[in-house]
């Protein structure tokens, strides 16, 4: 069984704010925007499944 690998630290490198859309295979960011609305609008023109995640957040509060 293949392990699904993703590394948000690498994927979001260079994105300091806004939201990004990540490809279904988690290999790259394929769309980005200043906010979620803009990112979703751009993503609506792409048929591939896209996972949305904000950039530039403080993620350390994920850690308990």
């Amino acid at each position, binding site marked *: 069984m293949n392990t*699904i690998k993703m590394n948000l*630290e690498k994927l979001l490198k260079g994105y300091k704010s806004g939201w990004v859309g990540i490809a279904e295979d988690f290999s790259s960011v394929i769309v980005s925007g200043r906010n*979620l609305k803009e990112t979703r609008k751009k993503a609506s023109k792409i048929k591939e499944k896209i996972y949305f995640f904000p950039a530039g957040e403080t993620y350390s*509060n994920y850690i308990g």
Partner: protein
Amino acid sequence: MKFSYSQLPGITSKVVLVPLVPLTFRYKNHDFATFALVDSGAVGAVISTVIADELGIKWREVPAMIGYTLSGEFRAHLVENIRVEIGDAEFLLSLNIVEGISPFRCVLGQRDLFKKAKVIFEGYKNQFEIIFKHN
């Protein structure tokens, strides 16, 4: 399904890795794909109001309840029968829509994912596995 733990942006320590699972929420004619923290210490699923708005959930119309964590109180709105897809698996869950948390916040916990699947954490391999029940 096996998933690697992920590093988080801005946290360069390779020691700090988290079990994030890609998923899609569906509610009425809305859907939103993102990543959720698989948290065996969480009672139930949590999303931010930002994600709830994207799903078209009228969470402001749901009475708020007060929840408690180690770091204090929070206001949450419980919404039931939200469809979630993880890989080929689908199930319904109840979501706590929590006010004032970071937009990316999305957590699956004991009342939802852990009732539907066996979850095996293999921290020494930096990976975890989700095996859904077939009933």
